[in-house]
């Protein structure tokens, strides 16, 4: 049975500590998740959780300078990220820098406030506005996902806005709001720490207690709940962009992370569009050549997920052709289910995928990050085997039912992204949508 073995403890202040030994390489991964993401933001302050993540790298009370300096000098790789559900931070350090990494992580968990200044806030807000320009505004199709996600979730829904947020909201925010956000979300009781790598588990737990044990617990964070209405029909939208080729984005509501149907739809995404033998690649790109590329994904999240299919039209072909071909394949899957060969490929690929996930201790997606994902989102770090079993146990009929239940033509968002001035290339009846 494949697994990520661990020992764990919860400190008096509520911090979960999880340790996984892997003695192959003289490195240790330190990985911290805070259970806060863009879903926790208040109206008018979209993008704030991510902006706050940046502030965590700008120094804390006992080390009031750049977070990167001592760690890079110690040979560390480090980074952080924010999504709708959580914010994570990690270092991968040579074993002799484990104390240093824990000192640094604990200092910013417990003592960020005295070092949080308006100058830092303004600087990082400028950096984030540039991150937004680079990855969204100045990138072809860069605003499409914003429009799609905005249409899938009504205004006020925790997932209505992408994590990067709106430029206007970012400009309106201030350092006092950062201080309040810190007090509410950045404390041991809302965090989980994993140490994975070349370290004795007992010693690692002892070090975690030593560095993090004296940080005061914060107020309990109430879970975010939502009552989302189903999609009202086939919602067709149009976005003009500085692009050469039109692209179709199709989106559906889908089951939350780990809920019934989630793994099945992940497998449906693979058999629809992952690799040259996948249905949509074969039909749209390889055989009919109406699309230059196609992709599908089940975007699993805590409260609810969304499934998406994206296809770019080949020159001379229309989005209507793509739409018809995609919906035809979906209808066939929903009625006949996957073929045996497709299930065999899916099983082989799932096995390889889970085994290869065990290759590395640190970074995004490494074993330390996976343990934290299971712990924070499911309340139990030991769900790796169960996660894999979801994929092993998925039958052809379960995939068929998931596709039939969730990927219906009558409850979807269809976003046409077309070159500037070519609204005529959108699907019939598409209404212009505003994003910036």
């Amino acid at each position: 049975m494949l697994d990520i073995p661990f020992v764990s403890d919860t400190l008096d202040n509520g911090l979960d500590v999880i340790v996984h030994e892997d003695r192959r390489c003289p490195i240790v991964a330190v990985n911290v998740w805070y259970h806060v993401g863009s879903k926790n933001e208040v109206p008018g302050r979209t993008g704030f959780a991510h902006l706050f993540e940046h502030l965590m790298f700008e120094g804390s009370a006992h080390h009031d300078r750049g977070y990167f300096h001592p760690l890079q000098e110690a040979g560390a790789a480090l980074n952080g990220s924010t999504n709708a559900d959580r914010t994570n931070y990690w270092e991968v350090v040579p074993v002799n820098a484990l104390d240093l990494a824990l000192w640094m992580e604990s200092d910013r968990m417990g003592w960020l406030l005295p070092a949080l200044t308006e100058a830092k806030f303004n600087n990082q807000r400028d950096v984030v506005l540039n991150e937004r320009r680079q990855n969204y505004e100045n990138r072809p199709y860069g605003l499409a996902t914003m429009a799609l996600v905005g249409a899938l979730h009504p205004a006020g829904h925790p997932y209505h806005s992408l994590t990067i947020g709106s430029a206007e909201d970012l400009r309106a925010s201030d350092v006092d709001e950062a201080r309040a956000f810190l007090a509410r979300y950045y404390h041991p009781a809302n965090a989980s720490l994993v140490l994975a790598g070349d370290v004795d588990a007992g010693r690692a737990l002892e070090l975690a207690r030593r560095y993090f044990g004296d940080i005061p617990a914060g107020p309990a964070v109430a879970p975010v709940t939502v009552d989302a209405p189903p999609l009202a029909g086939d919602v067709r939208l149009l976005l003009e962009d500085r692009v050469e080729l039109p692209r179709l984005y199709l989106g559906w509501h889908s089951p939350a992370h780990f809920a019934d149907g989630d793994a099945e739809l992940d497998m449906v995404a693979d058999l629809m569009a992952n690799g040259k033998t996948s249905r949509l690649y074969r039909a749209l790109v390889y055989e009919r050549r109406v699309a230059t590329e196609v992709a599908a994904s089940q975007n699993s999240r805590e409260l609810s997920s969304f499934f998406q299919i994206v296809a770019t039209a080949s020159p001379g072909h229309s989005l209507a052709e793509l739409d018809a071909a995609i919906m035809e394949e979906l209808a066939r899957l929903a009625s006949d289910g996957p073929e045996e060969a497709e299930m065999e490929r899916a099983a082989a690929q799932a096995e390889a995928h889970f085994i290869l996930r065990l290759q590395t201790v640190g970074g995004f997606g490494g074993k330390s990050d996976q343990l934290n994902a299971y712990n924070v989102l499911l309340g139990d770090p030991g769900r790796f085997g169960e996660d894999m079993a979801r994929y092993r146990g998925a039958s052809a009929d379960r995939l068929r039912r998931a596709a039939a239940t969730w990927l219906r033509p009558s409850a979807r968002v269809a976003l046409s992204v077309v070159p500037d001035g070519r609204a005529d290339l959108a699907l019939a009846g598409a209404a212009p949508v505003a994003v910036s």
Partner: protein
Amino acid sequence: MAVDRTAPPPLGADPKLEFPAIHRDQLANGLRLWAVAHHAVPATTAILLLPAGAASDPPDRPGLAALTGDLADEGAGERSALELHDALARLGARLDTDVGADATTLALTVLSRHLDAALDLAADVACRPAFDEAEFERVRERRLHRLIQLRDQPAAVADRAFLDLLYPDHPYGHLAIGTEESLRALTLDEVRALHDRAYALSGATLILVGDGDPKDLLAAGARAFAGRPRAGRAAVGPPAAPSPPGPPRARFALVHRPRAAQSELRLGCVTTSRHTPEYHALLVLNMVVGGQFVSRVNLNLRERRGYTYGARSAFDLRRGPGPFLLQASVQTDATAEAIREALGELDDLRGARPVEDAELEAARAALTRGYPRSFETAGQIARACAQLALYELPDEYFVEFVPRVRAVDRAAVTAVARKYFVPEALVTLVVGDRERVLPVAERAGLGEVAELTPTA
């Protein structure tokens, strides 16, 4: 014991790193086999290194090597394209082809119990591609469509224009994907001829890293490749290393992108080959300039001024003289200032503000203490070995890395900065809004600007 928060704790002694031993063999057809045992997960990474890449494209056929690599897995051996990919998928195997300037690599990752079957498929792709006419037309069309899409991407426009500026009429002067004109003119016979030259096993190395005994890994490589032809008709050794290019087409150039939210910046110069004795000094210099978060340019443009999400640099050393490249996307109204600051940082390192002791120590330590992280996975080890094979470096390279970096001193860093960051040799390219960038650039005295028309 309470934590002392007055200062971060000191580091203990650096851990000792065991470097992987490389086991070797050579087949009668000339293929060199390397194997490294790495017991982590029951999987193996195999890299077939073919020492010819986009720099081997004939001058009037940019894109030939990349198209050949793309076409190789569209049917091979007895299998059609879809049959081949079905077979790979049923093994849960992943096979990726990458065409760089100096080399083409086929990288296979597979569960070890399927290694034989997957290696056999990879060997078919390398040695027996079908090169079917219909597949050729399809792949050509797909790459032409890709070129159309790259026109939308400021970073791709910048990369293309920058190489052309820096390497006029030179093997390193084009992107691997090539140009529309060349892709349209290419023939399948040219693809076959390139394959004969560049995919000859006599010049290739197969690197296997996995959880098996090295003897067994070597035997698996031999089983898959021993029966393959010795070499193609036109087989020769690796192509000659390209010579230095002539002077750049312009010192400062702009590609107009109306209403761009940011300017895509590229600054750089032609440097030297991977074989240079200055290699370790250049690595250290790069860490000071833009090779890590705490580098001078990133701290200046991002952390001090907030002009960008980040700036980074690299010496992309190759068989011939490779480029030094510094890149950042900066907000449009700060373009001229960002260029001036970045050029100023490069110039300062030549003498006005040479590397400081603490900075030197931080740069060297980041490289040496960070070294163990590069040997965690089979894929990392296989790629490190591929660098040894491509640039014919000795096995001691890994062991000597740390002492050689430690031996780089301030004088050595300043010497390479003086040698390469010569103001007259540095080229600056902006992909951005002409109307908002040029007036400011002129006022800032950045010199004459050549406006380029993007081509693909």
